[in-house]
């Protein structure tokens, strides 16, 4: 059965956990900019963690279901409704055939990840269902969704349970996982590979100043304004790998925080890298937002990631017990 897109919104695309293994061919990892949020939403509706869902930027989205489905979403502070019922982040709702799901604009944050039981049934391209919006492949015909699109959904044994009497299920995901947008967030970073190319005082400024998100930001990267991070000598570096989370500094001194659709290699010096756990915060930044960075050690970054994963596994086991 299809999902009918009545209003596609500002930028909605099919995404899963991304396309690993093709960097040597210049292919971005892509995928949900907050892959963890999509994993949580998928678990809530009984999907595989890697099922494809929708990434919805800035809301203004409306879709109609043609069979019974479970839905859940995680992300910014969006107003999401099924008829007059509000569906909070990290909760599960049963939708019946013919009903509509509406995602209004967000109060804080910029993106939401919507999981639908069964998952979105588009072909795997290079091992992923994610849309590569720059090279136009994957997802739905390699493009963002448009009004009137019909999105194929996979059949799902659990869909039948949506015919249950309850609208909103009693269980939910931890709030810190499902509602990731914050006002004036602090993004934790580890030292950049090229931090030594900057004066120590410049790195201190980087850590103490607040940055503002520039309007010219997208799934490739977030352009920042604030302190200008100048180098003594602006020698070009030989291009090498960059990754989501990398903060590179062009000669202008205004840093760019790279996100999932970033290029595979770049030549600007890398002053810092946002830790993987905090990519959830990075994915919520929108033009005008103010935030700052805080340095932590690489060991701490790994520990935070491992701890979150342990909690995730416990959550998964708990869900399986509850929904049995």
């Amino acid at each position, binding site marked *: 059965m299809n999902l009918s897109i009545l209003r596609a919104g500002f930028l909605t695309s099919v995404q899963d956990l991304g396309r690993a293994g*093709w960097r040597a061919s210049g292919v971005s990892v892509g995928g949900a900019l907050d892959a963890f949020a999509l994993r949580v939403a998928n678990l809530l509706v009984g999907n595989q963690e890697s099922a494809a869902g929708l990434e919805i930027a800035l809301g203004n989205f409306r879709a109609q279901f043609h069979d019974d489905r479970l839905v859940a979403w995680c992300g910014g502070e969006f107003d999401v409704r099924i008829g007059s019922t509000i569906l909070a982040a990290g909760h599960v709702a049963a939708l019946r055939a013919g009903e509509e799901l509406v995602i209004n604009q967000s109060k804080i944050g910029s993106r939401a990840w919507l999981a639908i039981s069964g998952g979105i049934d588009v072909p795997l*391209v290079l091992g992923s269902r994610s849309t590569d919006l*720059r090279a136009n492949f994957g997802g739905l015909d390699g493009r963002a969704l448009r009004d009137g699109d019909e999105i194929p959904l996979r059949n799902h044994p659990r869909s039948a349970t949506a015919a249950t009497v309850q609208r909103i299920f009693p269980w939910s995901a931890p709030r810190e996982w499902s509602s990731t947008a914050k006002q004036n967030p602090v993004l934790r970073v580890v030292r950049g590979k090229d931090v030594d190319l900057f004066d120590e005082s410049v790195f201190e400024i980087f850590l103490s100043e607040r940055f503002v998100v520039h309007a010219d930001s997208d799934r490739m990267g977030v352009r920042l304004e604030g302190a200008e991070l100048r180098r003594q000598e602006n020698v*070009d570096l030989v291009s090498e790998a960059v990754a989501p989370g990398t903060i590179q500094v062009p000669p202008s001194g205004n840093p760019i925080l790279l996100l999932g659709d970033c290029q595979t290699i770049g030549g600007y010096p890398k002053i810092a890298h946002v*830790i*993987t756990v905090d990519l959830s915060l990075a994915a919520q930044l929108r033009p005008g937002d103010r935030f700052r960075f805080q340095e932590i050690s*690489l060991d701490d970054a790994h520990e935070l990631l491992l701890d979150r994963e342990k909690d995730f596994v416990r959550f998964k086991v708990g869900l399986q017990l509850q929904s049995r």
Partner: protein
Amino acid sequence: MEISALGDCAVVLRVVENSAEDADKALEAVLKTRQQIETAQIPGVIEVAPAYTTVAVFFDPLRAGAAGAFIEKIRAALKTKWRRTRSASPREIEIPVCYDREFALDLDHVAQTANLNSDEIARRHAEASYRVSCVGFMPGFPYLSGLPRELATPRRDTPRTKIPAGSVAIGGAQTGIYPFESPGGWNVIGRTPQRLFDAQRTEPALLRAGDRVRFRPVTRAEFDNWRE
């Protein structure tokens, strides 16, 4: 070999200090390192991505184990013998290019910089032989070394907002091909009708690091009638 962290899910191995002196030697060393790491099948490694002088190893910290032990495994892999396999020996690939005025948006600028006429620029560009140093920036974009020194042209001060797909361009001492329409700062001197990247192909990128490349000049009519 210097190994440094690129965030919490990747490390960068500095294989050579500078590729400018001997691009071929740097490329061989990078490809060797890449193969050593891939062959070692170190648990937790997701993928290995070569660049000019470095090789990046992307890993999953949840499967890679303690950071120190993981780095030791990489160091051990770098000591293994490298056997040149068939896939590692360079392929020779010819790419048709039309240097027609309509496509060559910056040919005059390159000609001025080089103090040569534009026909001469096209002739020299097509006569040289190139190697793919790496593929990156966007899917299938080859960074080619081997540009004749006199054709080197600095990137445009203001990047173009739209460079058409297939554009063959010069950026500093390098030349490359834009597989997709994109903003970009390189000087466009021609266009190829060949598809550089097709996600439906078994090997989606036409070119890979190490390939030898030659450009074959084609007329506008050949460009228009070109079929893969």
